[in-house]
């Protein structure tokens, strides 16, 4: 090859390129193509806010078919999956807390897209169990580079845990970590947008006007990745924001109790209108969801204009939830963005005709977590459940039943939990653990090595109004260089997750298009076990005081000096001999009187037996010196040889 003339070489290269291109084209024709879809869901919330949920899905066929080349799918993610053998991964950046009482706790949105504040990362690997920890560590570093976040703090073994069933059932190949204090900002959004083929230049993502989305009450940006040999890699990128529509724009309606329900449109929420789809997207739709409670109240068949509200644009389609339990259910108004363009931009909005109060379906229990106790030594964590009487609505009012709840909690090692101190109070009465806890799995924390993990399956009686679990803990002490810059702020305990496995929030909508299933509605249909995250706890720990080491050293040294001095003195003092010496000293004259006597010219008697002890002393001294020298020489010789 190297000997061939340059012209021939160029020809060969061209030929091979042509061949490759044709093979690739053939492969693409046969296999599924890489797909990209974009969707947006809007929903008015009962407390005068509006929810916007962006959903982007990119999928790539199994990597063997497409080789290493992608045209829509982000290459960085494909490489990540290949490198770390990820089977599932979910990374979320959240600012603010999902309000389960107002915004609902029993719909696909709250169970899938309500996330704990800060960063949450979990990943399941397709690897032998002993390689998983190392892979996780590499993965955290890669992700922290990809998303400009300090996910690399999850590398340390004190930051992640391996839940078995409390979080998600697995065979030990899942790792979970959370950084509750990570701040989320545009620097995290930009790399996330880079994974989209149109970024935020066109399509639904162009609505992401930074000042308006970061002004919201809740902001959760999530990346979910699933990969398997059969269907390739799928990434779902979602952004869920809860925004306050500008109340002074548009018409306002005053209800009897003074509550306002603002009318809003996309322009009010994002300061933008939607002018067409992203060209490479397979489908691009906007949904507006109206809660079941409103549909109930409107009475008539759901249409886009009724006596309660009117939508700004006529929808392309109306989807009603398939629900076998009652006739009325939530409805979706669907808009196809491909019908709109720059001249005719889409601006979906809702205008209320009547003041309206409605509520979202809550989770079976409101879970709250708080700290008890004071001081810097110990405290207790309490987890309280307040019944919302949902089971009565769903299953009738039988009172002998019980509801399962799974609690999953990770505590950092410096919160040393006494698991034996678990106490359960149901309606204020203390209950035996065995009555309520069906199954418990604890991984106790190890100092500076492992966080504590608690997985607990509770069986709460239906008739109960409230339950409280409490666990005592001692606060550990950190090394001086383990404190963060602002140590006085305290330390965060990541949110606990409460799952209600008997309640499923999935919603299925009739399939309108047999060829194409909307990924958003598909996620609504699958795995909707009701979950709720509790609050992040802030634990104040003792903060280092830099005068401390000084004090300690001073005290310790003083005390040790006293100890040594007194002990050594006591060891070598002989009281009887001292007295004898004293008597001798009384006879013997001191040196100075001797000198004075000499100066005066008086003759001094030589002390009796003076010479012989001195000569003895000198020979002894000489012997000692010789001995030391011999030892030194021999030591030197031995150490050198």
């Amino acid at each position, binding site marked *: 090859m190297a000997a061939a003339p340059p012209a021939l070489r160029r020809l060969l290269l061209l030929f091979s390129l042509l061949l490759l291109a044709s093979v690739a084209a053939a492969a693409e024709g046969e296999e599924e193509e890489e797909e990209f879809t974009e969707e947006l869901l809007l929903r008015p919330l009962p407390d005068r806010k509006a929810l916007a949920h962006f959903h982007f899905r990119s999928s790539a066929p199994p990597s063997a078919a497409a080789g290493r080349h992608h045209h829509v799918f982000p290459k960085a993610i494909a490489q990540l999956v290949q490198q770390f053998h990820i089977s599932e991964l979910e990374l979320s950046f959240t600012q603010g807390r999902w309000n389960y009482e107002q915004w609902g706790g029993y719909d696909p949105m709250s169970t899938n897209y309500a996330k704990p504040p800060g960063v949450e990362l979990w990943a399941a690997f397709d690897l032998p169990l002993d390689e998983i920890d190392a892979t996780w560590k590499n993965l955290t570093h890669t992700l922290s580079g990809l998303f400009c976040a300090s996910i690399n703090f999850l590398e340390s073994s004190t930051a992640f845990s391996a839940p078995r069933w409390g979080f998600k059932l697995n065979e030990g190949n899942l790792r979970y970590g959370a950084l509750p204090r990570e701040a989320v900002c545009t620097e995290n959004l930009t790399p996330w947008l880079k994974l989209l083929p149109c970024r935020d230049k066109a399509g639904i993502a162009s609505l992401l006007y930074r000042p308006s989305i970061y002004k919201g009450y809740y902001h959760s940006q999530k990346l979910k990745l699933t990969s398997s040999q059969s269907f390739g890699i799928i990434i779902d990128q979602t952004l869920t924001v809860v925004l306050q529509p500008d109340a002074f724009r548009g018409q306002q309606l005053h209800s009897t109790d003074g509550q306002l329900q603002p009318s809003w449109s996309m322009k009010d929420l994002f300061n933008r209108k939607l002018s067409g789809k992203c060209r490479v997207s397979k489908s691009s739709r906007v949904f507006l969801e109206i809660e079941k409670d409103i549909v109930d109240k409107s009475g008539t068949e759901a249409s886009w204009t009724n006596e309660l509200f009117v939508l700004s644009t006529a929808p392309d389609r109306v989807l009603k939830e398939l629900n076998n339990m009652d006739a009325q259910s939530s409805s979706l108004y669907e808009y196809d963005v491909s019908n709109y363009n720059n001249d005719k931009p889409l601006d979906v909005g809702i205008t209320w005709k009547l003041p309206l109060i409605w509520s979202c379906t809550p989770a079976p229990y409101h879970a709250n977590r708080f700290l008890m106790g004071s001081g*810097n*030594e*110990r405290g207790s964590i309490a987890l309280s459940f307040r019944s919302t009487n949902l089971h009565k609505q769903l299953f009738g009012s039988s009172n002998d039943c019980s509801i399962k709840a799974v609690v999953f909690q990770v505590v950092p090692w410096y919160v*040393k939990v*006494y*698991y*034996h*101190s678990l106490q359960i109070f149901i309606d204020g009465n203390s209950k035996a653990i065995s009555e309520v806890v069906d199954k*418990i799995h*604890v991984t*106790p*924390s*190890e*100092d*500076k090595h492992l966080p*504590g993990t608690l997985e607990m399956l509770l069986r709460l009686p239906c008739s109960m109004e409230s339950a409280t679990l409490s666990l005592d803990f001692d606060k550990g*002490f950190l*090394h001086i260089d383990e404190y963060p810059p602002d140590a006085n702020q305290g330390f965060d305990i990541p949110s606990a997750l409460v799952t209600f496995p008997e309640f499923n929030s999935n919603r299925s909508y009739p399939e309108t298009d047999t060829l194409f299933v909307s990924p958003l509605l598909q996620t609504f249909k699958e795995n909707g076990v009701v979950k709720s995250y509790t609050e992040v706890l802030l634990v104040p720990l*003792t903060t280092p*005081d830099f005068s*401390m080491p000084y*004090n*300690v050293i001073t*005290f*310790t040294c*003083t*005390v*040790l000096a*006293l*100890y040594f001095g*007194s*002990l050594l*003195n*006591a*060891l070598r*003092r*002989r*009281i*009887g001999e001292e007295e004898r010496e004293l008597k001798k000293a009384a006879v013997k004259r001191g040196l100075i009187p001797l000198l004075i006597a000499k100066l005066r010219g008086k003759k001094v008697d030589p002390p009796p037996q003076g010479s012989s002890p001195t000569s003895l002393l000198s020979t002894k001294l000489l012997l000692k010196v010789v001995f030391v020298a011999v030892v030194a020489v021999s030591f030197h010789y031995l150490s050198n040889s």
Partner: protein
Amino acid sequence: MAIRNFWSMAAAAVGFRLVLVLFGGDLHLASRPEVSTPLTSIRRLAEGYWLKQASMSPYSGSMYHGSPLLLLVLGPLTNKRSVGHHDHIYCSLIFVAVDFIAAMLIRATGRRLQIARNRNLKSLELTEAVSNSVNVSAGDIASLIYLWNPWAIVTCVGSCTSPIENLMVVIMIYGACSRLAPLAAFGYVMATHLSLYPAILIVPIILLLGYGPDAPPTKVFRIKSSSASKTDVSDNDKSSSSRDVQQFLWKPVFHFILWMLFWTFYVLLLSSIVLNKVGGLQEMFEKYFFAEVFDFFRSFFLIVFNMNIVFMVLPLAIRLKHRPCFLAFIYTAIVAILKSYPSVGDSALYLGLLGLFANELAEMQFTFFLFFGYIGVSLLSPVMHNLWIWRTVLVVESGFLPFNSFTEIYSLLGPGGSQHKRYR
């Protein structure tokens, strides 16, 4: 001269403890770092027992650092809770009994020492010294000091395992004083197993078994016998006086070592049975025996404190080889001061042993100053604890809480020296 109301006072002390345990409610003493250290806390023991019941190693989770045998004995009691009392009431009741037994053993030890002392003084023909001196029953005093010592009461009520450790040390000293090799070996092995520091007490134990209880130095007897031989030449008298000089007896020491091996084997066997399914003995050696010092300041603790204990073993043994009981007391005092997690339980032990030498220390100087200084420092230490965080105080406390015991040692050794003079 025995104390008249000994039994009523002892019963009152036990009654006082029972009242505190049963009706005192939760005094929150267990949460004081002076009372229960991470190594002796019964709350941690309960956690270890819970983990073991959940078929996990009790040492997983760096909570429990105690012996597996304590888990076996005290663990089931931590589970039971009775309404209206504090959590570990059954353990506290056991500790009351343990304290009482320890006090009785101290009393018996004191009697043996007293008998030996009187015999020695008689053989030195210092009978008028015997009758002149105050000569109270040291055993009674020591056991009452132990029973009424606020530290011992606080330790007993405050649910920590130090009463059991103290009992083992007392058993060891009693066994050695009365030359019961199996008992001494049992106490030694158990005490070492429970806290490792009493290992250095092997020196006084062997001396006690070999030479018998405290006596004036052999030199004194020799001078006495030589002076006797000068004045009186009869062979009969000479042999009797030389018989008084104690020879080192190898037989009890040999027995002690055999029994020690036996008990060591037994304890290891029991521990391995306890830890059978959760890691076995290896777990115990890795996580318990050598995990006494936590990562923090590890080298600092090891060198400054623990090495100092070892340094002082030999010089003190040479200096005080004729007074093994006193030597044992000095060792316990040094351990109480320098151990890495000192508690008032250790102070209770050495203050209790201090009473055994009541006769010898009757002429101690500055007692008023020492006593009130000790009380003052003890009252200051909780203030220190509030001012600084616990771990810092730990370092400080290790010197500071029994701060006066330094001066105490000093003044104790002083009278010890003057004692020799008096015998002469």
